[in-house]
């Protein structure tokens, strides 16, 4: 089985250990955490944004108040108009609970919007980072391909130049040989003739 060199592993781990965040980022992160911890809902155990528990508490309070009202009505004198008592109790409960419920619903809605917005931001950042990464990789690949094509074109041109120089060189040699032949060709024929003449008498003997 193929294994990576242990030194390479240690080198990579060392590179990871040398990564240091900027001072500003570290301070900002610590400050944000400090602010978050100070918020009462952030450190509440259980569901942080639960609307139901709050509603349940309010409902329980309302039930207790109504029950108390009913009991008080039953125990009180019979001449008391129960309908009127119920209406008054209802109006009283409505006036005391309605603003609290409205406020809690608004707060809850705000918190949910904020959390949705924060999640959206994080996703957007992720997508942007991935897009930049893909673009960079693509750009690098295209640059390399373009430089490869350019290199091949220049090599072709160089080969053509060398070939042209070689043909020119052959032509020059050919011309030189023709010149030599034209200059010394007749002289050589004369020399050969004289040589034959000189050797002729000796051969006759």
């Amino acid at each position: 089985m193929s294994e990576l060199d242990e030194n390479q592993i240690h080198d990579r781990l060392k590179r990871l250990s040398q990564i240091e965040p900027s001072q500003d980022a570290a301070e900002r992160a610590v400050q944000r955490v400090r602010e978050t911890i100070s918020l009462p809902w952030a450190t509440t155990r259980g569901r942080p944004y639960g609307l139901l528990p709050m509603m349940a508490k309010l409902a329980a309070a309302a039930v207790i108040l109504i029950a108390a009202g009913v009991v008080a009505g039953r125990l009180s004198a019979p001449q008391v108009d129960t309908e009127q008592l119920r209406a008054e109790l209802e109006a009283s409960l409505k006036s005391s609970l309605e603003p609290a419920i409205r406020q809690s619903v608004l707060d809850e809605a705000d918190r949910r919007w904020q959390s949705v917005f924060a999640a959206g931001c994080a996703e957007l950042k992720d997508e942007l980072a991935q897009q930049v990464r893909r673009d960079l990789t693509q750009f690098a690949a295209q640059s390399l391909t373009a430089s490869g094509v350019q290199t091949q074109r220049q090599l072709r041109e160089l080969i053509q130049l060398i070939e042209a120089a070689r043909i020119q060189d052959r032509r020059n040699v050919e011309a030189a040989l023709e010149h030599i032949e034209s200059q010394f060709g007749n002289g050589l024929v004369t020399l050969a003739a004289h040589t034959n003449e000189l050797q002729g008498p000796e051969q006759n003997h």
Partner: protein
Amino acid sequence: MSGRNEELLEYLDKSGAELFALLTRLTLRQDVAEELMQELFIKLSRSSGPDHKAGTWDAYARKAAINLAFDWRRRKRTPLQQLEQVPEPVSKDGSPLGGLIRCEELQETLDAIGRLKKASREALIRRYIQQESYEHIAEQMGATPHQVRAICSRAVNHLRVTLGSNHRQST
């Protein structure tokens, strides 16, 4: 503010920067590390975990930070263009592609670390990335230094095999 929150703030002042550095090293992103810092301290404030005396509090926080970072890595994993599809450059030094490859190597290493068992992962990170002593790690993990050495050694061997097979596939 409750006594627990005061303790938490004290711990934040003492070790916040260090935890942020740890999260940055494990995510390779400061913005994500910032988000995870928030998550970590909210988790700490709500946990009924350890007794939160100095030592156990620190050990618990570091373990939670490591788990959060690797949970994030698992969630964000998306297919990217494989490096083997990119032609081999003439020189890797100083070029943008070289930087990209080095970054990819770190990502690959972190992914491999993420596949280790939790105890091995924690020991390896604390020893080789956080540069803590074997004795300190052993104390916080409730083991002996000798055991921590053995865990780290096994973890490195595991990384060699994992990354080696990746390397062979890519070549």
